[in-house]
């Protein structure tokens, strides 16, 4: 006979301490944050397009879109469609054993395209590991992103050329790098305007594109990373040192299996005020809103005012191809968020404005298909790195001990010429 457990089973979603009579915690906002009802409880959430593509006027942010041409608007959709198509191709490549892993961005296209297209060429981005659409916008070859997940390299592109650093796998670590980089930018800027610097940097002042002032730094991270000490330290430093940095949190509601509510009791953007910087919550599935808000935040950053943006979005796929979200979230949730799809939203808007018809939509799909096929072909042809490169780049100034280790290795390792060629695909 089993002894009945006298303790009630705790509800994992309940607030610790809420059963105590003297609980003085403030009421909890709706969880997870739902952009559709955000206007009710919090007028702060910025949305410029409704889920069915209707334009909402906004006195604060409309000026940040006033220069957009029809071609620019189409370009935003094109970026999103291509990013989604490449993402599908990468998932397929992983399923076929050609990539070791893939972290899908599906659902986050608007958050990434809107924010990345707000940047100037001379700005610097510190991504996490899911920013494939942002990488696309910064001109990074999609093949370079695939090479990372194929296990060919740990970091596949020239960060300075693209203004886009290599992916950061340890979540949140890059927030400090971004803040430090921004502190460097502000020093370069101060010295160049004071005329006392011997800096050789070419990007220390007035950049190309919109906005005036120094280059800005933008760091991407997620709701999971928002719990890391490094992210909170970075927010604090950015405030203390008035660093030209924008913190762009894509709250996609899930950190693998943990809901956003498990990361934070308060909405993430509200943390900003505690660090003395500004926080904005934006509908992350609205490409116009993310573009406008990020442009505003970048302009502030160029004047030494950092901002924390929380883009409320949704990870429509699994965390990675190694994950099974059916174990922790309901199908209805996906259906619900499917109705706020960022690509459909922009498509509807452009059709309403007469900027897109069936023929143009089909042509765009065809362009994306062709690009995906090309990327696939190139991915299959990616050579494995030479075994001889194993010891390369550990140091700038290679120690004798490492040289000796390489020499010893080369004695037992056959030369590349005699290695079995990789199975042709």
């Amino acid at each position, binding site marked *: 006979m089993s002894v009945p457990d006298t303790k009630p089973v705790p509800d994992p979603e309940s607030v610790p301490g809420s059963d105590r009579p003297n609980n003085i915690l403030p009421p909890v906002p709706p969880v997870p944050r739902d952009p559709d009802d955000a206007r009710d409880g919090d007028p702060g959430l910025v949305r410029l397009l409704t889920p069915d593509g209707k334009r909402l006027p906004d006195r604060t942010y409309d000026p940040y879109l006033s220069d957009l041409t029809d071609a620019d608007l189409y370009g935003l959709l094109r970026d999103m469609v291509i990013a989604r198509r490449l993402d599908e191709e990468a998932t397929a490549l992983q399923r076929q054993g050609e990539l070791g892993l893939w972290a899908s961005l599906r659902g986050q296209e608007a958050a990434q395209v809107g924010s990345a297209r707000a940047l100037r060429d001379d700005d610097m981005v*510190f991504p996490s590991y899911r920013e494939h659409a942002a990488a696309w916008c910064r001109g990074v070859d999609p093949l370079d992103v695939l090479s990372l997940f194929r296990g060919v*390299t*740990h*970091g596949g592109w*020239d*960060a*300075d050329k693209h203004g886009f*650093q*290599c992916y950061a796998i*340890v979540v949140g*670590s890059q*927030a*400090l*790098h*971004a*803040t*430090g*980089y*921004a*502190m*460097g*930018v502000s*020093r*370069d800027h*101060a*010295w160049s305007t004071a005329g006392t*610097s*011997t*800096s*050789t*940097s070419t990007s220390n002042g007035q950049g190309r594109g919109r906005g005036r002032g120094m280059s800005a730094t933008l760091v991407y991270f997620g709701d999971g990373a928002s719990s890391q*000490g*490094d992210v909170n*330290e*970075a927010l*604090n*430093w950015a405030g*203390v040192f008035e660093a030209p940095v924008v913190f762009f949190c894509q709250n996609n509601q899930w950190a693998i299996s943990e809901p956003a509510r498990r990361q934070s009791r308060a909405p993430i953007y509200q943390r900003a005020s505690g660090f003395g910087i500004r926080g904005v919550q934006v509908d992350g599935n609205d490409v116009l809103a993310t573009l406008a808000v990020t442009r505003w935040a970048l302009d502030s950053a160029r004047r030494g005012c950092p901002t924390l943006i929380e883009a409320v979005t949704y990870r429509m796929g699994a965390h990675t191809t190694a994950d099974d979200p059916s174990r922790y979230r309901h199908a209805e949730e996906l259906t619900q968020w499917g109705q706020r799809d960022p690509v459909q939203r922009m498509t509807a808007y452009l059709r309403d404005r007469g900027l897109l018809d069936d023929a143009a939509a089909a042509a765009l799909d065809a362009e994306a298909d062709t690009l995906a096929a090309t990327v696939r072909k190139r991915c299959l042809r990616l050579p494995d790195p030479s075994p001889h490169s194993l010891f*390369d*780049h*550990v*140091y*700038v*100034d290679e*120690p*004798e*001990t*490492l040289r000796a280790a390489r020499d010893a290795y080369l004695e037992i390792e056959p030369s590349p010429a005699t290695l079995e060629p990789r199975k042709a695909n």
Partner: protein
Amino acid sequence: MRSTLTLAKALNTGLRTAMAADDKVVVMGEDVGRLGGVFRITEGLLADFGEARVIDTPLAESAIIGTAIGMAMRGFRPVCEIQFDGFVYPAFDQIVTQLAKIHYRTRGRVRVPVTVRIPFGGGIGAVEHHSESPEAYFCHTAGLKVVACSSPTDAHTMIQQAVAADDPVIFFEPKRRYWEKGDVETDEPLAGAIPLHTSRVVRTGDDATLVAYGPMVRTCLDAATAMADEGRELEVIDLRTLSPLDLTPVLASVRRTGRCVVVHEAPSNVSLSAEIAARVSEAAFYSLEAPVLRVTGYDTPYPPARLEEHYLPDVDRVLDAVDRSFQY
């Protein structure tokens, strides 16, 4: 110009020279500005180089290293002060996961020439977390270079060499030797100095080899002096570089003496002395008259100050090990 300086002042002078030589050198850490550091290593730098280059930071070690990495990516050459050895662990992730690996990760495209200064070791009667010797953690990580200075002369040149190096350098300073004095050539050009990653003989002898670094070099020199009274000559080698190791002078010495004792404050388990013992055994097996012996801190947490004299290797313990070596 030759001056008699404390080790602390030698570091201060070396840092000043490095900052004057390259305006991309910035100093950052807790209390390094207005106060000049709790050990006064950065004294006067704020007044001379300004707030943009001498940065009093919030109390967050991970952020000190993390933002230094970002500044290095921007082209700066940050010198970070970790106030005490036992405070480095919040920064451990940034050092091991990021600082050590960025050059490798980016296939050599991004350099992060960050110097991390850490006062280390015991013997100053401090409270907990102020007397540790964490060097082995960093030596275990590829991508980092690790050095320890032991004298004012070396401190002055080694800090400049570390700052000028394009790889990240963890720079250990023997805090209980900060006030020891020595002769320093303050305007000697770096070009003529012996390379940073070089070990060297600091006392010659033919009977046994003592290997040490940082604060234990002085202890070993004192042991050698005591042993000389008994008619035995001990050779003392200051490793200076902990990663990569430079065992050339050690092996040359052991091949002559046949006996080797390695001394450090850090615990013995999986320590630098274990690595040195293994390598000496591999490379000089037929020259050894006795196994490589070790004199180290114990495999305990660092004890309260009133116990530290029992924990720390001293002349007696070093001589005891030498005696045991001679018994083989």
